[in-house]
């Protein structure tokens, strides 16, 4: 993996300008609005992205999620990193 798509424990993921998390009331779901793209996302992914505020680092985000869902941090981290790397590759998330 090259550095452009890497995420570390100290990374502070956030949505760049031009990417917005929005509750799509007409369809009863969460969406990530981006240039010429709309990503449908589930409630869990929306919760993760709400924590991606550029203040919290990945370690803090994982700790909060592990507490909230009472799940092992290692499992949470694996899922969160996979999701964030995917969004970063699509250029809708920055760290």
């Amino acid at each position: 993996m090259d550095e452009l798509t890497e995420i570390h424990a100290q990374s502070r993921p956030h949505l760049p300008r031009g990417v917005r998390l929005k509750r799509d009331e007409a369809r009863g779901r969460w969406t990530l609005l981006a240039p010429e793209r709309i990503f449908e996302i589930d409630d869990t992914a929306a919760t993760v992205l709400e924590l991606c505020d550029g203040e919290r680092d990945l370690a803090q985000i994982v700790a909060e999620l592990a507490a909230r869902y009472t799940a092992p941090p290692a499992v949470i981290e694996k899922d969160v990193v996979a999701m964030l790397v995917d969004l970063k590759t699509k250029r809708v998330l920055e760290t």
Partner: protein
Amino acid sequence: MTAHTPPPPAPPIGLLVELTHRCPLGCLYCSNPVALERPGNELDGETWKKVFSEAAALGALHVHLSGGEPTARRDIVDLTRHASQSGLYTNLITSGIGVNETLTGDLADAGLDHAQLSFQGADKETNDRLGHYKGSWERKRAFAAYVIKAALPLTINAVIHRSNIHQVAAFIDLAVELGARRLEVAHTQYYGWALANRAALMPPKSQVDESIAIVQAARERLKGELVIDLVVPDYYARYPKPCAGGWGRVAINVSPTGKALPCHAAESIPGLDFWNVRDHSLSDIWHSNSAFKAFRGTDWMPEPCRSCDRREIDWGGCRCQALALTGDARNTDPACYKSPHHERIAAMAMAESESGDGVLRWRSYKADKVEA
């Protein structure tokens, strides 16, 4: 016995507004109709604002502020602000001409989410010649810098045809150099002006294949740096594109004078009654206008679409292209290999790709403006 009533359609996702047909450029492939709307007939700002509010209430998520050149409207900042405040994701589709640093900053402050900037060529000479506007290269580059300075995401759009298809690699380099997050390599779609100039625009298939390979290699190389979207040319395709995401399924276009259209070329199909946003709400148009129902879903389809397992992927392809190339808007889009017209269309494209340019029709209000 009760009559069968189809369920109401899901709400549209995107609204594309052609705010004006005024444009400083004269591109041979412009997707606007050849009969351009005059400035005096354009909707006023209050009506456009009403349309944005109605679109958001209906469930649309994106609004594409397009034209012509949308910034030719003096109220572009005000319109952008209203669209943004309505909750729509606002996308400006621009030539970059006439947009200075102050206006770019004002648009960003008004809530603009994204700017898409066209380039006609990947170097000064090619760009200015194909855009039919001297000096546009420098102005476009300056606009790109204003967008980056305003911290807005930038997409570069390059419409590809025979005179610039050799520059696909250079367009990719240009997008990276300008700091774009996204590049559209969009092979020309043959409607409006592009249809009128098709013989001058059609590239040879060998170069099309080469351009696709260049994009695929660059996507891998630039992963995480630049997203590249590719629109492949219909005439050499095996399957048709799901035009506008399916007729009346995900998108509404509104013309400068307020006509609501299922796609930008829909007016080329005779016999459809398009309602105007001055007289009807977008919701009313989406749910009740017969023009939006005409090719919605799959019930209208003849064979080979009706029994095809791709009928809800391609949605029959493009109705305007079916009309333009086969004489009947209900036919399968001849871009599909199952169309009886498919071989003829591919052969015609190959023949045109080897022809001379012939008479060029540069986009302008004087439709008879031609150059040998």
